[in-house]
Structures are given as C-alpha cells and as structure tokens.
C-alpha cells in the first residue's frame, strides 16, 4: 500500500491505452497524457504497458510506502527525494517499506512525470480501465479521483519481488525543450474548402503559445487569427468555424471560433467545430509534456509519414524490454 501525504497539483492514476471502446457514447479514453514516458516507466519495472501508474503534473505528491516496492520515475523531472536522497529518473529503484518519497516541483523542462510500481496499482477497473476521468467522477481511486492527502492505494502482491534494476540508456531518453515540434496531418477540414491557403500555411509556420488554461481536456493555443474561406457554417451555425456535429479524433486541432484547441485524452467526442489538422499518434506524447507558455510548432506530415513514425516509435519502445 502507499499513502498520499501531500497531494501534488493534479495527481491521478492512469493506465494505457485507457478506457477504449466507449468513444461512441462520449466516454473519453483518458490514460496518460504522455503515453511514451508512461510505458517506459512500466517497462523499467518489468510491468506490461497496461498496468496502472501515477501521472503527476507540475508538482508531485509526497508518498509513504507501507511495503517494499520497485518503482521507476519517468517524464518531466521533478525535484524528488527518497528518505532524503535524490531520486534519479529513467531507472528502476528499490523502495523499502516505511520509506517516504517526496516529489516536488518541476526541476527541468516538460510538464508531467510518471511513477510506475512493479505490478501496478490495485484499484478497480471501471468500464475496462483503471484510468481516472475526474470530470466524470470515475476511474482510478474511485473515492478520490484527484489523489488527495490521506488516500491509500493498494499495490499488487509482487510489487517488490523483482529486484533486477533497469536503467534507460541516455540516448533513449526523450529530449525535452520549451518548443515542441509536433507532426500533424492536414485535416479533416482543411484548405481551400474551409480555411484559406494562407491560413493553413500560417498554421504550420506559427510557434503557437500554450495558453495557461490548458489541461487534459484540451490545449488552447495562442497565436494569429485563422481565416476561413467560407462566409458561415451553413446549417452548422452562423460562424464559419461551425459544422454540423461530427465525431472528433483524439489529438485533433479544433478551431472553436478563432481559437485553436488541441483535443486531448479527456476531451469531447462530438461537437460542431472545424478541425484543421490532427496530431500524429507517435507525437501525441509531446503535448503531454508541453506546459503553459511553451510553444508548439506543427510539422506538416502525410498520413504515411505519420504511420512510419509510429512504427519506428514502437520498435524503439520494444528495445527497452530487451
């Protein structure tokens, strides 16, 4: 068991790939915002990708372990100590019963950190997943979707048994910065039929600033105003960004009014706003690491190039298991 002594800013239990199969009724997948780091953390403790772990945002929690456990931290580095000693990221570490792990503020670039525990967290599944969807009030630790002080979370029985330490080679650690170049496929609604050609060029040329009011539902982007190539949205509505309601892809860049918003893992499934581009699956993790006031640059890539990137990313991850 672990006990939360201090909650951190936005600490939740997530699993990968989240709550799949309910998008058609508006239940989002949730799951980690940075699936790459999350899966790396699990692999570092010998877990499968689907085991539940912790997602920490900007500022981590303080946790007491009531039993021995193998854990690994990945993602954005935070000032963290284990019984007063600095915790290294990107490698498995052994935590003895009675220890206190204190995870503080971000110490570098990025936005979200992950903690995997060997065997995963023992919380009930809701609709096939342990991922937390705080807005819906389900998943994760059901009594406290946002992990609060005093919350106790069960660990699986074999949480400390495997003591093989694993460490990620430096070259395999994802590179962070404050400007994120993210592959994005044009469309589903593009130029010249919905946006002007100048606007889609501008879209790919602009370093978009991440609005402070960005979260797991969506990332708002600040930048120039998009121009539409049609006067209104027809039967969809009076504004040219309106469309008759249609289903959204996770990672799509929705333009609501004049404001681009990246719809992320807790986002809506259906709506009436146009989407200019959709982020390549392989690059979605970068949004999870972009923090308010960072910049996002979209790179225009074809669907084929995006699939190649996805395949390469999966090969890279599979090397970690070796």
């Amino acid at each position, binding site marked *: 068991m672990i006990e939360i002594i201090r909650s951190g800013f936005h600490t939740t239990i997530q699993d990968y790939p989240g709550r799949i199969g309910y998008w058609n009724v508006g*239940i989002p997948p949730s799951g980690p915002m940075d699936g790459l780091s999350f899966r790396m953390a699990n692999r570092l403790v010998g877990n499968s990708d689907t085991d539940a772990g912790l997602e920490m945002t900007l500022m981590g929690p303080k946790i007491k372990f009531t039993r021995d456990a193998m854990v690994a931290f990945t993602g954005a580095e935070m000032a963290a100590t284990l019984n007063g000693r600095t915790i290294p990221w990107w490698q498995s570490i052994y935590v003895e019963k009675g220890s206190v792990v204190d995870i503080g503020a971000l110490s570098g670039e990025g936005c979200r950190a992950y903690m995997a525990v060997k065997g995963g967290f023992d919380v009930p599944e809701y609709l096939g997943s342990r991922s937390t969807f705080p807005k819906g009030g389900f998943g994760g630790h059901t009594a406290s979707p946002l992990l609060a002080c005093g919350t106790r979370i069960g660990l699986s029985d074999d949480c400390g048994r495997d003591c093989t330490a694993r460490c990620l080679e430096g070259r395999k650690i994802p590179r962070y910065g404050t400007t994120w170049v993210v592959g*994005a496929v044009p469309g589903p609604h593009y130029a010249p039929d919905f946006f002007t050609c100048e606007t889609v060029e501008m879209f790919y040329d602009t370093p978009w600033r991440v609005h402070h009011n960005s979260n797991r539902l969506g990332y708002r982007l600040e930048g120039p105003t998009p121009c539409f190539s049609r006067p209104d949205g027809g039967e969809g509505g009076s504004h040219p960004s309106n469309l008759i309601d249609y*289903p959204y892809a996770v990672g799509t860049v929705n333009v609501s009014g004049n404001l681009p918003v990246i719809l992320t893992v807790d986002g809506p499934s259906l709506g009436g706003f146009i*989407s200019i581009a959709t982020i390549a699956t392989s690059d979605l993790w970068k949004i999870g690491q972009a923090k308010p006031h960072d910049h996002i640059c979209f790179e225009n890539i074809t669907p084929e190039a995006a699939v190649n990137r996805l395949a390469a990313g999966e090969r890279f991850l599979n090397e970690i298991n070796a």
Partner: protein
Amino acid sequence: MLDTNVSPIDSDALAGSIPTSAGTPGVVYRFAGDAYLLVEYGDAVLDLGLRFRAYLLEQEIQRAGIKGVAETIPGVRSLLIKYNPLVLCAEKLVTILKEIETVLPCADDVEVPSRLVHLPIAFHDRWTLDAIAKYRRSVRAEAPYLPDNAEFVARCNGLDNVEQVFEYLQKSQIMIIGLGDVYLGAPCAVSLDPRYRLEAPKYNPARTYTCEGGVGIGGAFSCIYPMESPGGYQLVGRTLPIWNTWQATPDFKDAPWLFKFFDRIQFHAVSEDELLEKRDAMRRGDYRLKTEPGVFSMRQYKAFTKEVRAEAGRFKARQKQAIVQCTKGY
C-alpha cells in the same frame, strides 16, 4: 434537398470520394490523422437520411469484421472510424469502404429499433434559471439570450411567448441521433416534426456551469446534460438524470448511460415538485422510466414530412427571419 453532384474540393485532407448518384448521397473520406478516417455523407445539411446512411455503413463494418478497425463513432451525417494503421493502411480502408458503399441498401428502406422514452420536464425550473443567473454574475451580464433563455428561443423562432416554446417541445418526438454531445451519453437529438423543430444559436461564450439534467437547445439540436458541466445550449427546463455511474437502479442495468441511438424522447410538462419527487424516486430505484418499444421507418417518416411540407416551410421561413433579428449584438 440540394443535389449538387459536384465532387468535393481537392485538398491534402481528402482520402477519397464517391460522387452523388441517383438516390444515394455522395461520400467524402477525410484523414483525421494517421489512425482515424472521417466519412461524410451528402451535403452539409441536417437530413435524417444521411444519418441512416452512416448507420448502415456502421452496421456493415461491424458485420464484416474488418481487421484493424477498432471503433466506429457516428455523427449527424458522418462516421468516424478508428483503426490501427500498423495493421490496416488508410488506402486499403478507403478501398474496402468504397466497396461496402456498393452493397448498402437504400436509406429509405431502413427500419431501426426505436424506443419511445417518456420524460417528465419542468420548464423554467429554478435549477436552470440558477445556472443562467450564475452565468450573468460570472461570465456575461448582457446578451440577447439573457436573462431568459426560453424567451430568447421564443423570439428566435417567431413564437409569441415561452408557453409556445414549451408547447412545441412537447408536440414533437425528439430523436436521438448522437450520444456523447457532450460526454457521458448526452443525447444529440432532433425534433422529428419539422413544424416544431426549434432552433437557437448557442451561448457565446459558453457557460461554466449547467445543472445535471438540464435540457437545452443549440442550433437545431436538443440536449440533456448528464452531469454538472460547462455548456452552450439555451436552457429551457430540467428532466431526469440520464447517467448513473454505478448502475445502481434498474433503468441503468445495461449501461451507466440511459439512451440508445434512435430512441425517441417524448417530453411532458410537470411541476418542479413533481420532478423532484420523480428524480428522488428514480435515484432510489422506485421510479421506472416509461418506455415503449418501437420501430422507426424512414419511408414512413419521409411520407409524413411530405404531408406537412407546406406547414413546415412556413414555420421555417418565419424562423429564418426571426433568427436574423435575434442574433444582432451576438
């Protein structure tokens, strides 16, 4: 209906298309990233026939069991297909979908199971009025739709008063054509009788708070809010809870969400007190939702809309004029 027979404008987002032909709407396939394909039917208009076309496609995809297709999500005139691009490439998927189009039956022949769901509604209730008041205090004090959304809806539709709005909402069955708009099985529903299809532009900017069970109108759609949440629809009343996380009562035995695609809602007005009583009883499991099984036939529906076409046209014309007046200062 518009029958343009024009091929879609070429763009990098286009994955393929099929032109309109006699009796069948055109199809446009759009890339939505590397793992989703958006299939759009016909012209950008609200037409149940297009929704049923998407339904037919969805049924056929499920029946065919295409390897690599993970999920299908219907919109009002579209279907989003989520697939694993490492198993199935977009080009092949489009080829398969085009083949399917050649064998799909005509949407007019569609008959779908469609329950009639009776829902009590308290119009002008204190909870939705409270949500509007909160908006006035915290977001925007003055707007064409303030202080009374129902009154705004009346004006937008050329009606004399709010009583007429409430009457119209009970005169037509309202069909659920989308779920999850927004979140947790929230219905995207449209009045089946075009003579009573109210329309109203959405809030600008959106509310930050809506009560659970709130009933709203946005564009030509009606919605029920499954949980306390932000929202943009014009609020007219409140009904029963439509989401139950722990499936604690018999109405939620099959799923935490209440509705199925193509359910028809029939509202009937009740007082605030009656609604409260029913909501409490439903929560305890003592009140069962009143539903009747049924079948919806597109052919019969088309015959009906033909019958009322003249009257519906007059309403639509009046509505069009009224909306222009009402959206000044938006």
